[in-house]
């Protein structure tokens, strides 16, 4: 018989590997190593658990081996087939699976205890375990359904099965929905109380799954485009918290340690995202913004330029700054942008990229896309550093970005007030590739479009970039 302390030591080593892994993941040089350490910690935790099951007597291997094999195969296929442009959706989906797994473990433990009539008498054990089951359920189901909604929003919509019809995913949230969400949350907590009152009753725990699952859907449904980075990182945090609560359910410290660290890490990211938009987390979650609010009416017009004109302006430029936004992701023009940079650099021009922290739909979205196009990451400059460079920049090329460049944010009025922006308007010439003059997510007309030094290239990002590249080559 193996002393059970051996398993605890194994889990301790695994937890230490996670701690070192997360630490190393926060610096570019050590990040790949950090990821490997995390994977090693996970492998060790799985091996220790299997060894422990084997020594303590396995009832059946079928479900264990089957689950591991099927999960590993699906995970492998999804990870190898994904394109960089599909990364936000995939991260959201994996995140949902993590939360769902935690919720299911809690549910399974409760049902098993009911089946085995292994319910403790009222006391610390009953309260602690049932509260943990309830909390891992609430957080886990919210993470699962919330992440699935987020995934469809990041995709933009879904295809109806059998008909092949593409439907845009709605963003919908009248203000009374907040009351519904509050009621659902309160009733979820009430249901935890019910499970403690009647621990042998299935009904309450299933009702809990239903109410918190619905809450997750209603929680993400009203949140629109530009607020997605906040929600995605918050859901990431929740999946960790769910795992930590599950650790209380099965009495395992490695779950508690790993889960709460992930929870804290996700929360930090959430606050970074909120700060970059100058919004409070509460406002993002409960107050509709832009999308469903009032939008500025467009009263001004601007004559579009053509790629030849822009190519001539770019001819001889010494310094160009590219400002990518969600539009670059949608039109998948990152490769065309890289080709543009290569063309400019071949004439001795310096090309930098200005990255706003909330550009795109998830934290670091632009960085991932540009990395896919082989843009060296030293060229991607953070907002605080690049802003002083704009006055010395010959041409600023904005592709598919809007609110993050809107000088209205400096006026201190309107929905964008106080949001840190890229000082694109200080560049000598501004070129903007955009479909139309329409307002961005915040619903505020952008003065940048109407400045005399601004040239608008109206059209799809990829198409316009390719035409621009063609014109530069023809010069």
């Amino acid at each position: 018989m193996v002393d059970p302390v051996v398993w605890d030591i194994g889990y301790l080593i695994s937890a230490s590997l996670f701690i070192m892994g997360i630490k190393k993941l926060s610096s570019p040089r050590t990040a790949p190593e950090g990821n490997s350490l995390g994977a090693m910690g996970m492998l060790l935790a799985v091996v220790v658990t299997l060894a422990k099951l084997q020594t303590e007597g396995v009832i059946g291997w079928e479900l264990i081996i089957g689950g591991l094999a099927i999960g590993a195969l699906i995970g492998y296929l999804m990870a190898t087939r994904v394109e960089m442009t599909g990364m936000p959706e995939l991260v959201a989906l994996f995140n949902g699976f993590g939360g769902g797994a935690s919720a299911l473990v809690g549910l399974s433990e409760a049902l098993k205890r009911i089946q085995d009539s292994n319910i403790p008498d009222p006391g610390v054990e009953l309260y602690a375990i049932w509260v943990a089951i309830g909390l891992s359920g609430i957080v886990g189901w919210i993470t699962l359904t919330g992440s699935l909604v987020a995934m469809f929003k990041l995709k933009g919509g879904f295809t109806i099965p059998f008909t092949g019809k593409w439907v845009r995913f709605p963003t919908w949230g009248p203000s009374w929905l907040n009351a519904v969400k509050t009621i659902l949350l309160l009733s979820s907590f009430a249901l935890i109380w019910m499970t403690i009152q009647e621990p042998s009753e299935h009904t309450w725990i299933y009702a809990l799954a239903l109410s918190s699952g619905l809450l997750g859907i209603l929680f993400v449904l009203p949140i629109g485009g530009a607020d997605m980075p906040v929600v995605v990182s918050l859901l990431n945090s929740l999946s960790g918290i769910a795992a930590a609560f599950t650790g209380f359910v099965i009495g395992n410290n490695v779950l508690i340690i790993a889960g709460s660290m992930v929870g804290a890490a996700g929360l930090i990211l959430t606050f970074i995202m909120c700060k970059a938009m100058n919004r409070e987390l509460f406002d993002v979650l409960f107050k509709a913004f832009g999308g469903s609010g009032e939008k500025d009416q467009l009263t001004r017009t601007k004559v579009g330029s053509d790629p030849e004109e822009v190519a001539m302006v770019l001819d001889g430029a010494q310094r160009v700054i590219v400002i990518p936004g969600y539009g670059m992701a949608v039109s998948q023009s990152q490769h065309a942008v890289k080709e543009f940079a290569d063309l400019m650099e071949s004439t001795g021009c310096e090309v930098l990229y200005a990255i706003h922290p909330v550009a795109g739909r998830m934290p670091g979205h632009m960085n991932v896309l540009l990395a896919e196009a082989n843009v060296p990451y030293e060229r991607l400059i953070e907002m605080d550093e690049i802003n002083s460079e704009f006055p010395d920049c010959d041409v600023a090329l904005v592709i598919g970005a809007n609110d993050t460049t809107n000088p209205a944010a400096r006026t201190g009025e309107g929905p964008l007030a106080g949001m840190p922006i890229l000082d694109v308007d200080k560049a000598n010439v501004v070129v903007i590739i955009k479909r139309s003059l329409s307002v961005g997510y915040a619903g505020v007309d952008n003065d940048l479009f109407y400045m005399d030094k601004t040239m608008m290239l109206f059209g799809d990002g990829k198409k316009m970039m390719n035409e621009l590249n063609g014109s530069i080559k023809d010069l």
Partner: protein
Amino acid sequence: MSLTLGALVGSITVFVLAIFLGFELISKVPPTLHTPLMSGANAISGITIVGALILSNSSFDGANTDVAALLAFVALVMATINVVGGFMVTNKMLGMIAGRRRKGGE
């Protein structure tokens, strides 16, 4: 095995300390790493796989398999997708960001 108040407080202590540790560990992250950090941390949250493994330990005989074990099996599949897919995807992204590819994942 019964859970005592002392053991519970011990677990809560670990929980609180780990949250503080998490905040300290990554107080400053460059934006380039936001996505990989999120996806790597997400893979680590798949640690719930341990619970799924323990609860999947049940006899499997067709129709008689109990609901608890089947739910644990579903949890195990989801957690394994999260873990394997998460670490592989993170590795893939980091390979591009660092401009070189590494072998690995889970």
